[in-house]
C-alpha cells in the first residue's frame, strides 16, 4: 500500500493563510489579495465547468498555491463511491496541482439520492470499517493524500460505541490519511454535545493535521449551527490559537460559503487569523 500521508513535507503543511475562491470575488482576487497566501477551491464549484470557472481556475493556479476541498464525495455513504464524480474530481485536483484533497467524515448521498448536505455517521465500529477502505480507495485512485474534515453535527446518530474524537482518530490511523481540522466545527460540536473542545484537540496527533478551517457560525438558541455565514467569534479564535500551539503552524483557510462579504472584509479577517496563528506560536516560545 502506498503511503500517501507521509509524502507531505513542512512546506506543504504550512502554506500560510488564505480563503476560499468565490465567484463573488472572481473579478478582483488577482489584484486585491494582500496577505492571502493560498486559495481553497470548493471542488464541486469548478468540476465539469468549461466557462468562467475554468478560466478563473487556470489563472488562479498561476497566482496562488491551490488546495481542493469537496463536499459531495459521500465517503461514509452506503452506496459505492461515485466513479464519475471521482474521475471528475481527479481531473480537477491534477489540473490545480493541489498537494492533497479533502472532504468531510460524513455522507451526502444514500440509496441513490443526493442530499447536498453533510449527514453525520454513527460513531460505531461498523462505520469505521465501512469508511476506512473507501478512503484508501480514493487515495489510490488520486495518488494523493486525502484529508478528512471533522464535520459539525446536530444529532448524534444511534449506535455510538466511541466518542467523536476516537471515531475520527481510529479512521485516520487505519486509513493512514490526514486531518483537515475545522476549529469552528470543534467549537460548535463541543457546545452542542457538551464536551471540552480543548480535550478534543489534545487527543489529536499533531502530525496528522495538514490543514485548518476557521469560520463563523449561527446561534439558534438551543444549539449553534455551523453556517459558514458569519464572522469568526473570539472564542473560536482562542481555540484556534490553542490548537496551533498543539500542532505547530499549519495552512489555515477561512471558510465563508453564505452571505459572502466583500473581499476587503475577508482580507481583514485573514489578517486577524494570521495574527492569532502568529501570537499562538510566540506564546509557546
Amino acid at each position: 500500500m502506498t503511503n500517501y500521508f507521509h509524502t507531505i513535507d513542512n512546506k506543504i503543511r504550512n502554506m500560510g493563510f488564505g480563503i476560499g475562491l468565490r465567484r463573488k470575488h472572481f473579478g478582483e482576487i488577482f489584484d486585491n489579495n494582500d496577505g492571502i497566501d493560498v486559495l481553497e477551491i470548493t471542488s464541486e464549484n469548478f468540476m465539469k465547468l468549461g466557462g468562467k470557472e475554468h478560466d478563473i481556475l487556470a489563472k488562479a493556479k498561476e497566482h496562488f498555491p491551490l488546495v481542493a476541498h469537496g463536499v459531495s464525495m459521500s465517503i461514509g455513504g452506503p452506496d459505492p463511491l461515485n466513479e464519475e464524480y471521482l474521475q471528475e474530481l481527479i481531473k480537477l485536483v491534477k489540473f490545480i496541482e493541489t498537494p492533497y484533497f479533502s472532504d468531510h467524515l460524513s455522507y451526502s448521498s444514500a440509496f441513490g439520492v443526493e442530499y447536498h448536505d453533510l449527514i453525520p455517521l454513527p460513531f460505531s465500529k461498523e462505520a469505521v470499517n465501512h469508511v476506512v477502505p473507501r478512503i484508501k480507495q480514493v487515495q489510490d485512485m488520486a495518488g494523493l493524500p486525502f484529508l478528512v474534515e471533522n464535520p459539525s453535527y446536530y444529532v448524534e446518530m444511534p449506535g455510538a460505541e466511541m466518542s467523536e474524537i476516537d471515531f475520527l482518530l481510529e479512521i485516520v490511523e487505519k486509513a493512514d490519511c490526514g486531518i483537515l481540522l475545522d476549529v469552528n466545527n470543534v467549537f460548535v460540536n463541543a457546545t452542542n454535545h457538551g464536551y471540552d473542545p480543548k480535550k478534543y484537540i489534545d487527543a489529536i496527533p499533531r502530525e496528522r493535521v495538514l490543514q485548518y478551517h476557521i469560520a463563523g457560525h449561527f446561534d439558534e438558541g438551543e444549539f449553534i449551527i455551523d453556517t459558514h455565514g458569519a464572522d469568526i467569534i473570539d472564542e473560536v479564535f482562542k481555540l484556534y490559537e490553542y490548537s496551533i500551539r498543539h500542532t505547530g503552524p499549519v495552512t489555515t483557510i477561512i471558510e465563508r460559503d453564505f452571505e459572502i462579504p466583500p473581499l476587503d472584509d475577508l482580507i481583514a479577517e485573514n489578517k486577524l487569523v494570521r495574527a492569532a496563528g502568529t501570537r499562538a506560536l510566540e506564546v509557546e516560545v
Partner: protein
Amino acid sequence: MPTLEETMRMMHSLLRGEKTPEEMKEFFGTSEKRLEIYQRFVRNHVTKTLAKNFVMLRRLVKKEIWQGLRDEYFKNYPATGWQLNDTSKSFVDFIAKKVREEKMFAGEEFYIELAQFEWEEVVVYCSELITPKPHEIETPVLNPTLSIMDFRYPIGTFIYYWRNKKRKDPWIIEKEYLKEQPQMLFLIRHPQEQRVFFHVATDPLLFAFKVVHDQISLPDAIKLSGQTEDTVRKILADAHQAGIIILPENF
C-alpha cells in the same frame, strides 16, 4: 443497536420528508428541532436551486402555486446527481406533465417552453466544453456551447421584454405572448463575457451558422448568397461578435 444501514434508512425517510421529525425523535433520541434542521437543509438545497434556475417562471405564478409546485417536485423527483443544478434537471418534465395532464396554467404550453428556455440557459452556462480562442483555430468554428431552440411561442421576445422592463411582482402575462408565433433561438455562452446570451435566429445569423456548420468556403458563401464579399464578411463578423461562431484571428 441499529446497524449502519438501518440508521441511514431512518435518516433517509426523514430527509425525503416521508417521516416527520416528531415520528423520528424516539429512534434518534433527540429533539424534533435538531432533526428538523437536517430535513430543512436538504429540502432547501433543492428548492433554492429551483428558485434560482427558474426565476421567470417563479415570478409569473402566485407564491402559493410556486410553493405547491416545488414541494410536489421535491417529493417526486429526488436528486440523483452530485451537481447542485442537477436537482432542477427534471423540472421541465414536471411542468410539462402539470400543464398537459393536469391542465395547470389553463393548459398553456407557453409555460413549458418558458421552463425549457430557463433550464437551457443553465445547461449552456454549465457546459464543460471550452470555446477555442481565435488564435487557436485555422478556420471558422461554431461556439461549442451553442444550443438551438425551436419554440412555438415568442419566448425570446417575452424574455427580452420582461428582463428589460423590470416589472414589479406579481407578473401578469399579456395575451400576445400566449399566441403561437414560432421563434428559433440561439443560446450561447459568450466567449469573452462568459455569460449566456440568446439571439433570435435572423436570416443573417442562420446564414452564418450554415456557412460555418457546413464548412462552406468564403468564395462559395459569397456565390451562394449572391451578396458582396464585404456583406458576407460583415454577416460572419456579426455572428462572431454575437458569440455564435468563432472566426480565426486573421480571418
